[in-house]
């Protein structure tokens, strides 16, 4: 498995190094690539610094306190006034001095992050499923113009509005390198915005426990140059390519015979199931099943024959296919660019 090829890794992954050395990773809040994450990371470093100071201060005072009279005959206590001053300085002034600026800057960062987006910002609707992500692209009027799953493309450098929904349990939408998480609450629509400064592939993961396969409910967020993005979206709007070869046509039929169409939609065919991801352009996606395995033919075959092995508990049942049937089916799916 080599997902990392697709995911931006900015440096060697740290071993047991302390906080400072290894804050990069494929999914790190401290390796910001978007404005919101950057603001939060900027809040973090001074906070960490003050926290270290406070900890050292308390421990230093404690050490002095405890060892002062060690090996002496008599105790060397503070008098009442000194004690009072110590408590006031450490217990009241110190927390106030540390938390007031912290709270104020966190309010102001919160306001910046939650500032309303321009009305013409692009809008993506994401619906949390057990355990994958359904993604709809909306036009200005709010109509769904394209549907995909587990892979979200956005234009780099532009703020994008995300409408977050769920029709089942609570999930949470989170791309650490770009943005803090927002829950997807059944019965409500939460809104968040994401801006990716640079093109790149970022990993997002469900952050609210949502049942058996919460662990393997991830997705990729692909930020592209606006032109490339537009081309991609145009491609996604189209219905699926028709089978061109005999083998692909047989694969197409197999898709119905094997019962796949009961759960999956392939726009342009009569397959319109809605229990599983839209497969209209499955071949254009980088990963399968919530960014669990790369979308290679071997993994695809493995997934279709035994999804429960790849992702135990997943809502897709295994299929009994002869090697021949599987081959034609795969051939067809591979053609769905």
């Amino acid at each position: 498995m080599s997902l990392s090829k697709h995911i931006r890794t900015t440096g060697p992954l740290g071993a047991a190094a302390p906080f400072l050395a290894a804050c990069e990773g494929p999914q790190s809040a401290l390796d910001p690539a978007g404005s919101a994450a950057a603001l939060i990371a900027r809040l973090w470093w001074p906070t960490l610094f003050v926290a270290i100071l406070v900890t050292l201060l308390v421990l230093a005072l404690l050490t002095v306190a405890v060892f002062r009279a060690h090996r002496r005959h008599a105790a060397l206590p503070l008098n009442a006034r000194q004690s009072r001053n110590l408590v006031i300085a450490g217990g009241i002034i110190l927390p106030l001095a540390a938390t007031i600026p912290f709270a104020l800057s966190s309010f102001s960062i919160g306001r910046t992050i939650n500032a309303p987006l321009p009305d013409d910002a692009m809008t993506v609707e994401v619906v949390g499923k057990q355990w994958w992500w359904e993604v709809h692209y909306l036009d200005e009027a709010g109509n769904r113009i394209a549907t995909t799953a587990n892979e979200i493309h956005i234009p780099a450098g532009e703020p994008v509005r995300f409408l977050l929904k769920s029709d089942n349990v609570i999930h949470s939408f989170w791309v650490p390198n770009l943005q803090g998480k927002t829950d997807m609450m059944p019965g409500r629509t939460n809104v968040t915005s994401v801006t990716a400064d640079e093109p790149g592939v970022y990993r997002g993961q469900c952050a609210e426990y949502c049942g058996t396969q919460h662990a393997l409910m991830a997705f990729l967020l692909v930020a592209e140059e606006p032109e490339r993005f537009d081309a991609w979206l145009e491609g996604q709007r189209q219905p699926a390519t028709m089978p061109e070869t005999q083998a692909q046509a047989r694969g197409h039929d197999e898709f119905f015979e094997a019962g796949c169409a009961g759960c999956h939609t392939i726009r342009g065919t009569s397959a319109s199931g809605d229990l599983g991801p839209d497969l209209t352009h499955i071949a254009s996606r980088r990963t399968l099943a919530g960014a669990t395995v790369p979308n290679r033919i071997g993994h695809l075959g493995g997934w279709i024959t035994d999804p429960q092995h790849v992702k135990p508990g997943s809502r897709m049942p295994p299929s009994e296919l002869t090697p021949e049937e599987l081959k034609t089916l795969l051939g067809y799916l591979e053609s769905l660019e």
Partner: protein
Amino acid sequence: MTLEKPANPRDVTDSPEETAWLERTWHSPGGLLGWFTHVNQRMIGKRFIITAFIFFLLAGILGILIRLQLAGPEQQLLGPELYNQFFTMHGTVMMFFFAIPVMEGFAIYFVPLMIGTRDMAFPRLNAFGYYVYLIGGIVLFGSLLLSMAPNAGWFNYVPLSSKLYSPGYGVDIWTTMITFIEVSALTAAVELIVTTLRMRAPGMSLNRMPLFVWAALVMSFMIVFAMPAVIVSSTLLILDRLVETQFFIVEGGGEPLLWQHLFWYFGHPEVYIILVPALGMISTIIITFTRRPIYGYTALVLSVVAIGFVSFGLWVHHMFTTGLPQLGMSFFTAASATIAIPSGVQIFCWIASLWGAKIRFATPMLWVLGFFAIFVIGGLTGVMVASIPFDTQVHDTFFLVAHFHYVLIGGAVFPLIGATYYWWPKITGRMMSEAAGKWSFWLAFIGFNVTFFPMHQLGLEGMPRRIYTYVEEMGWGDLNLLATIGSLVLATGFGVTLINAIWSVFRGQRAEPNPWGAPTLEWAADSPPASYNFRHIPVVHSRWPLWDWERDRERAVVTGLRNDRREVVLTSILDAKPVGVQVLPAPTIWPFVSAVAASLGFIGIIFHPIFFAIAFFLVAFTLVAWFWPRRPWRND
């Protein structure tokens, strides 16, 4: 206001015959059947403590299994189903069946001793509370063995925990067993409040009460006002699951967020319910091992009370990512930061008390010093996650797992183990080994930090909590391995204490009544205390009665209590002037029968609602039997 010494004291002499009477009156019957009739506070307290530690061991083993599964990427040890049951059970058992009951247990055992009385206000209710707890815990853990354990996490969010998404009995068992623990906690709380307010030794005015008693009092009040929220939420959930009400079902006009509000309105105070008694233990230990009065008694009391109050205004900080309005949530950031002040005041009062003292570095003191290092870090990360933007990054990640283990283990478990070493001679009459105690401490201290410190970084690197596996490319493997190794060291550390405890019961050095030279009343009783706790109820003139007695070589006591029935002195709330004598009830089987009846009903409703009615009347009848007056009337 306070009691003056009597002008012309008479000497008190005891005849062995009177003592024997007293012993007979307060005696707990032997035999297997007798065991179920015990009501004395020390029996019940001890059972709470032992049972809670057994749950700690079991839940701790689950914690270790969790760690083994996470030690490397794509491990195959536990599948998703088992993992989800394990962390749910680990969290639920640790919070509800270990941390709260163990604190209650220590309070039940020691509060009556520390305030100089012979039992609690409602001894039978006390026993009832214990059986309910025991039955609840056994059923809950039994469900794990039958692999139908709950698996929706310790805060059991709807709609995941609704019948649709969690079919089967797991969540029903969770909800029902939480009700059990509520009942048990509430009985203990009322019991502790009434005992503390009305049964203190004459002269122990409120401002002379030991700090642990204050802490237990605040804990009890918090239980009384926090638990009802979870009573209601779990009732609503069980109705949703069993009779198809629509409270949390969006399609029926229900509101999933209502669950979160109700749960955290209880859940946040709950973590301080666990912390506050631990703070009391720390003060107690510091006083004894510095051998001088603590600095800032009033400030310590006020800050514990303040923590109690403020903790009811913080619950929304667990819901920062749910999409509530920002402005409203900001209030909760501010409130959460405010709680740093009473916490800080405590820390610095203790530092002032320790300053330049001739400290005896016995094992209890070591655990307290370990507390400082760990709790301050955990508290500071708590203040960090109170920031809304920062929390959106670390909420539900291992950063948070690190935060709460720092405060729970550092803030509560370390002082608790220290207190166990401290009070062990009183409970068992034997000392635990000091050498083993120190080994245990260092292993646990190092193991703890190796386990949980790396989790901060894992969280910042984007590792969500409650995931049973992760792919190798995430780069989380090394730190997870380190954490797992640490957890084994930590478990070894706790294991040394477990062995130490068992060994000492048989081989430990016999303890004097007051082996540490402590100033509070529990040390005036024998080690272990006689069935009647004190031969005479003491009269108190300061916060440090035992030190007074040592100095004056004389002590005043209450006389005139009858020996042939269970009599205790009632005193006034503020200044503890005697106002009357209360006759307490003797051992009986009825609390046990009532608890069994209640359990039958509660477990029955999982299968059919009719059990509610059956249990209602069964319990009602057992209560009548329990309270039915028998001749000779108790107070004639």
